[in-house]
C-alpha cells in the first residue's frame, strides 16, 4: 500500500512537472505580454515607452528566456509562493481564494442536485426498463445529454431575462450580486441565490443527464448477473433485489465518476461562468489567458492538474473501499 502510494505520488510529481513546464512554455510564447496586451488594447496613448517597458519586464522577470522564468516560478512554488498576478496586482493565491467560493457555490450545488435526481432516475429507468414511460424519460434525458450548455444558457437568458422582464419570474442576467457588501445578510443571500439559479440549472442538467444514463447502463449490466437471478430465486422482492443486490454492485463505477468530477467541482466551467459573468475560477482562467497573466495561468494550471491527479487517485483508493476484492497492488 505504502509503496503504491509513493509510486503514485512520484509519478504525480513528474506529471505536474511536465504539464507546468509545457504550459509555461506555451504561455510565454503567446504573442504579447501582460504589459502590452492589456494597456495597448484599451488606450494606445497609455502604451509604455520602450525604457519603461524594459524596466517593467525586468521587475516581472520577463526579460529572461522562458526556461529561466520557469525555473524561477518552480523555485517559488516549491517554497509555497504562487507569485503575484501581473494584471491584477494581487497574489495569485489570494485571487484563487477569492474565486473558489463562488465556483464551489455553483458546481457544488449542481453536483448535489444532479446526484440526488440521477440515482432515483437511473434506478427507476432500470426497474421499469422497456416500458413506455421509461422510454419517454430516457429519451428526454438523452436529448438533455446532447443539448449544448451554452445554447441552453442563452435560451434560459432569453426566457428569464428578456421575455419575462418585469414579471415576478425575471431572473438576473449577469454577475453574482447587485447589492453592496453592507446590505443585510438575508437580502444578500436571496440576491445571490437568484443570480445563481440559471448557472446552477445549466450545470445541473448536463451532469444529471450524464449521471442517470451512466447509472442505468451500469444497472443493466448488473441485473444480468447470476447473483441477481439467485436473489430473485430465493424470493427477494423486486425493490430489495434492485437496491441491495444490483445497485450496491454498481457503486464502483459511480465512485470513479465521482472522483473524476473533482477537478470540475473546484475548477468550475469556463463557458458557464463566462456566459453568466460569474466571478469564479473558470472565468479567472479565461481572463488570465486573454491578459497573458502568466502567474495566474500557471497557478490555475497547477491547481487543475493537481485536482485531476488527486481525483484519479481518490477514485482508485475508493475502489478498494467499495470493493474489498480490488487491491491497489
Amino acid at each position: 500500500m505504502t509503496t503504491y502510494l509513493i509510486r503514485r505520488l512520484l509519478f504525480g510529481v513528474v506529471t505536474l512537472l511536465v504539464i507546468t513546464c509545457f504550459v509555461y512554455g506555451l504561455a510565454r510564447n503567446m504573442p504579447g505580454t501582460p504589459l502590452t496586451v492589456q494597456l495597448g488594447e484599451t488606450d494606445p496613448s497609455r502604451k509604455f515607452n520602450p525604457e519603461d517597458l524594459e524596466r517593467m519586464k525586468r521587475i516581472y522577470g520577463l526579460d529572461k528566456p522562458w526556461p529561466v522564468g520557469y525555473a524561477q516560478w518552480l523555485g517559488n512554488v516549491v517554497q509555497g509562493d504562487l507569485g503575484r498576478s501581473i494584471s491584477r496586482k494581487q497574489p495569485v493565491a489570494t485571487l484563487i481564494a477569492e474565486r473558489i467560493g463562488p465556483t464551489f457555490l455553483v458546481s457544488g450545488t449542481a453536483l448535489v442536485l444532479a446526484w440526488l435526481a440521477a440515482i432515483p432516475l437511473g434506478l427507476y429507468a432500470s426497474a421499469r426498463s422497456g416500458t413506455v414511460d421509461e422510454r419517454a424519460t430516457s429519451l428526454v434525458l438523452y436529448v438533455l445529454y446532447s443539448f449544448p450548455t451554452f445554447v441552453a444558457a442563452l435560451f434560459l437568458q432569453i426566457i428569464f431575462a428578456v421575455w419575462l422582464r418585469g414579471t415576478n419570474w425575471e431572473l438576473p442576467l449577469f454577475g453574482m450580486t447587485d447589492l453592496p457588501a453592507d446590505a443585510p445578510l438575508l437580502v444578500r443571500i436571496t440576491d445571490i441565490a437568484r443570480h445563481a439559479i440559471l448557472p446552477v440549472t445549466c450545470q445541473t442538467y448536463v451532469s444529471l443527464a450524464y449521471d442517470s444514463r451512466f447509472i442505468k447502463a451500469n444497472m443493466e449490466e448488473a441485473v444480468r448477473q447470476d447473483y441477481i437471478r439467485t436473489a430473485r430465486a430465493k424470493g427477494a422482492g423486486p425493490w430489495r433485489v434492485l437496491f441491495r443486490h444490483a445497485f450496491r454492485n454498481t457503486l464502483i463505477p459511480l465512485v470513479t465518476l465521482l472522483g473524476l468530477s473533482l477537478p470540475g467541482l473546484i475548477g468550475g466551467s469556463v463557458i458557464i461562468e463566462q456566459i453568466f459573468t460569474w466571478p469564479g475560477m473558470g472565468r479567472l482562467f479565461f481572463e488570465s489567458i486573454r491578459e497573458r497573466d502568466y502567474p495566474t495561468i500557471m497557478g490555475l494550471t497547477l491547481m487543475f492538474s493537481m485536482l485531476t491527479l488527486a481525483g484519479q487517485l481518490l477514485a482508485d483508493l475508493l475502489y478498494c473501499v467499495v470493493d474489498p476484492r480490488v487491491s491497489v497492488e
Partner: protein
Amino acid sequence: MNASSPIRSSGFWAEAWRRFRRKPLAMAALAFVSLLMLVAGLAPAIAGTKPVICRYKGRLYAPCLGYFDRRLEPTIFAKDKFRGTYPRNLVEKDPGSWAVWPLVFQDPYRSVRDDEWPGRPANPARDEGRPSRINLFGTDQAGVDVFAKMVHGTTIALLVGFVSMGIAGSIGIVVGALGGYLGGWVDMLTSRVTEIVMCIPTLVLILSIMALLEKPTIWHTMAIIGATGWTGIARLTRGEFLRLRQSEFVTAARATGAGPVRIMLRHILPNALAPILVPITFGIASAILTESSLSFLGFGPPPPSASWGSILNDARSNLSMWWLVVFPGVAIFLTVLAYNLIGEGLQEATDPRLREARK
C-alpha cells in the same frame, strides 16, 4: 452458374448493419447527417448571390464555385467589373445571358443591398431583422442573412467532426495499439504519456495554442481538437489489443510467421475496430461541441468563415434577437444529438453483450 458455391454466412459488419437498420432513431440520425452532407456539398446552390450556372458572352460559367474557393470563381467577371454583384451586371453587360440562381438569393458574408435582386429591398440590419419570407432565419446585426450563414457553416460543422476525429483516431489507435500489443516499456511509456495528456486542461491548451498562432484558421482548430482528444481512444484501443493479443488467432498468425506490424494491422485491428468506432462517433459529437463553444467564446476561426458557434456569439450582445440563438442553437443540438444516436446505435449493433440483453 454458381450453383455449387457454398452459402456464405453474412460477415460481422453486414450483421451489424442489419441490426443497426432496425433502430429507427439511429437510422433517422444517419439520414440527418447525410442531409447535412448534402447541404454542405450544395451550399452555394442553396444560398448565395452567385449564379449556379450562367451563360455569359457565349460561354458557360459556374461562379458559385467561388464559395468553395475564391480561385474557382471565373476571372472574367472580375475583369468585367462585376464586383460580386451578378444579377444586374449579367443583364447589362450581356443582354443575351441567362443564369440559374441559388434557391435563396442571400449571401453568407455580406448584407444584400437594396434592389440588388430586382425589386427586393435591402436586408434589415441591427435588431430589425426578424425572420421573414426573404430572410428565413432573420439577419444579424450587420444585416447578413442567418440562413445563408448557417447553410455555408454546415461544411465547417461536418469537417470539424471528421477531420479532428480522424486525427484523434489515428493518434489514439497507433498509441493504444503499440502500448497494448508490445507491452513492456513501450506500454509503460505510452500509458504515462496518455495520462499526462489527460491531465492537461483541454480548453486552456486549445485557447493558448490558438493565441499562439498568427492567423488561426478553422484547420488549426480541428488539428488542436484532434491532438488533444485522443486519450480515451488510446486507452480503449490498448485494452482491446491487450485482450486480443492473447487470443488463438493471433498465436496462429504468429506461428505462420506474420510480423508484428502485420498482426496488428491485419489480424487485431479489424477485430478491435467496432468498440473503437463507438468512442470515435461520440468524439465527433464532442468535437463539434468544442468547436462551436470556442467560436462562441470568440476564439473560433476569424470572419468571414461562418461557423454556427460564431452566430451564437453575435447573439450575446443583443439577446432580444432570439433568432440568432434559436436557429444555430438548434442546428448544433441536432447535429450533436445525431452523432450521439449513431454512436449508440453502433454500440448496440456491435456489442454482443448488449445484444443478448435485448432478448
